[in-house]
């Protein structure tokens, strides 16, 4: 039991060290990597990139490799710098045979984004949301006194009394049922922020994968069924962000990585992306009067997809320099055979264990550690029958077990350690 108790401490230490050591290593050796931005320039008909050099100064270039000054860069991207250009009277309204005023370029330029964490956040969020008075007539909406529980039906709970408003609940539930909604709700999305001039309501996916919109107008429910064919795809996220100038409300992301824009006219537009994993990648969508650009950011690369009228025209992939790279990354993979960190959101990986990407080098390092440990034991004359077990522990846990066992060594050879 005394032996087991020692290895119990080693196990605990290995667990601790596998979280702490990689973290501190990264803290010490991580390099700042500013984000690169990929745009599409209608003027040069190519992708334009804003990146950084080692001194953290901006570099402006295009896909072909041409370098631009900041001023030139702004001029080739009127959809991004419309405000700046128009302030300096540099804005040109005719862009690639399209006429777009600066005012329109600013007004009809929309950014939507999401990350893997946000998708998980949405999924685990408590299913109570406000349903605002859709057309309040004011610059911002007022918080209703109740929140709606979305699930087997719609249930309104008055927050002031903490009691169910059965009448209102029945009214809204019936209206949905009358419009063909089949409970329970699979997934829903809304924008629960009062800082907007109108509310798009909530978008609900019923059991038959049909998309519905539920609004509240003058305290009455208004339901609209969407012409949306998701092909029995499982939906990961419905994200809504109202904008008075946009002709869409938000987007839907399927688990398979397809993106659907939710239009105001009860339809959806599908954007076919080759390689997007909503549970791992970041997504950024820019819809402007010239085109739609969708950026998918992975761990080691960023890809931009250009769409005209929902058709994919071209794409461009840019490598991302990780925060740990080169020799620092190499030594990270050699030193740490695995690292543990918690990810509280995702259903699939609640406790992430990352294995080194350089297994051969890591194994060689482990062998070296075993030899060093043996030498230390010999030097301090502490070789015993447990030394073999210690070496096996180091073989399995690398530097973590090595450190733990060194800390548990009896250097002074007193009998405290038997």
């Amino acid at each position, binding site marked *: 039991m005394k032996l087991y108790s020692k290895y119990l401490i080693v196990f605990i230490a290995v667990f*601790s060290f596998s979280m702490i050591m990689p973290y501190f290593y990264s803290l010490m050796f991580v390099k700042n990597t500013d984000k690169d931005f990929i745009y599409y320039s209608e003027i040069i008909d190519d992708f334009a990139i804003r990146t950084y050099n080692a001194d953290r100064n901006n570099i402006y270039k295009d896909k072909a490799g041409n370098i631009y000054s900041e001023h030139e860069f702004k001029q080739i991207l009127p959809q991004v710098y419309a405000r700046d250009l128009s302030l300096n009277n540099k804005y040109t309204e005719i862009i690639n045979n399209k006429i777009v005023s600066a005012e329109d370029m600013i007004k009809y330029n929309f950014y939507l984004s999401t990350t893997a964490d946000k998708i998980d956040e949405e999924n685990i969020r408590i299913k*109570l949301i406000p349903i605002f008075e859709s057309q309040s007539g004011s610059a911002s909406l007022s*918080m209703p006194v109740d929140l709606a529980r979305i699930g087997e039906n719609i249930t309104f*709970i008055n927050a002031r009394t903490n009691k169910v408003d059965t009448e209102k609940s029945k009214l809204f539930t019936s209206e949905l049922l009358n419009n063909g909604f089949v409970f329970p709700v699979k997934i829903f999305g809304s924008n629960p922020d009062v800082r907007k001039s109108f509310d798009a309501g909530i978008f609900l996916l019923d059991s038959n994968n049909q998309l519905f919109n539920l609004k509240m107008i003058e305290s009455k429910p208004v339901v609209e069924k969407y012409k949306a064919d998701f092909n029995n795809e499982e939906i990961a996220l419905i994200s809504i962000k109202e904008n008075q100038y946009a002709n869409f409300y938000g987007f839907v992301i399927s688990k398979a990585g397809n993106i659907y824009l939710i239009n105001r006219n009860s339809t959806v537009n599908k954007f076919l992306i080759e390689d997007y994993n909503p549970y791992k990648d970041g997504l950024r969508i820019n819809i402007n009067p010239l085109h739609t650009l969708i950026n998918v950011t992975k761990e080691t690369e960023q890809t931009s997809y250009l769409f005209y009228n929902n058709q994919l025209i071209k794409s461009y992939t840019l490598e991302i320099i990780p925060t740990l790279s080169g020799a620092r990354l190499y030594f990270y993979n050699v030193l740490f055979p695995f690292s543990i960190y918690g990810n509280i959101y995702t*259903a699939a990986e609640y406790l992430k264990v990352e294995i080194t990407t350089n297994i051969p080098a890591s194994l060689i390092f482990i062998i070296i550690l075993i030899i060093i440990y043996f030498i230390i034991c010999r030097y301090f004359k502490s070789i015993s029958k447990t030394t073999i077990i210690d070496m096996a522990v180091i073989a399995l846990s690398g530097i973590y077990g090595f450190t733990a066992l060194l800390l*548990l060594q009896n250097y002074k050879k007193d009998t*405290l350690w038997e």
Partner: protein
Amino acid sequence: MGKYMKSIFYKEFIKLNRILLAVFIINTAVLIYTFFRVRLGIMMNEPSGIWLDIILKNGIFYSKVETAFYISALLLGVMQFYPEFERKRFRLACHLPINEYKMIFYTSLFGFFVIAGIWIYNTLGVVLLAAQFFPADIYKEIPLIIFYWFLNSLIIYSFASSITLEASWNVKLRLVLLMAGSLGAFKMTVYNSNILYAFTALIFAIIYFFAIYFPALRFRKGL
């Protein structure tokens, strides 16, 4: 119940009765404080806005209970085992005519039950106070959050008791280095989290709970 468990518990209870009272007072005071704090918040703001804030930001409006819980666990671990460490009083228990592994287990089990008691007390307290102001959708998520605090408290208790009981200051320091890193390993800050995470945390807390055997057996055999 083991044959001598009752007797060991009796000893621990006598040893710790003032600490248990202090722990009860601390946790009750924090519960009362939380109740009034929440009540004030609800009175001064639109309740639906508070609800939404909690939902959108995973608001743990009873976070002071977590602090009280951890302080209780730390206090319990130190005060339960300091008298054993002081003057090597642990030897008295080692010579009792009871299997020493059981003796060590029962001694720690007492601490476990106290922490479990705090857990149940705090869970009931927070759920009851939350039920006054929030719907079931919110307060039914509270037990899982407090369960994580319970597991973390167990780890803190085991850490404190192991370090306190260890007879050698040199080894105490080494144990701190070996074991401290796990103290905040299973921090939970969102509602409705993956239950498998709780299961992993539970397994780890159980493993950690037995860490006391290391200093206890060294005490028994080594000094």
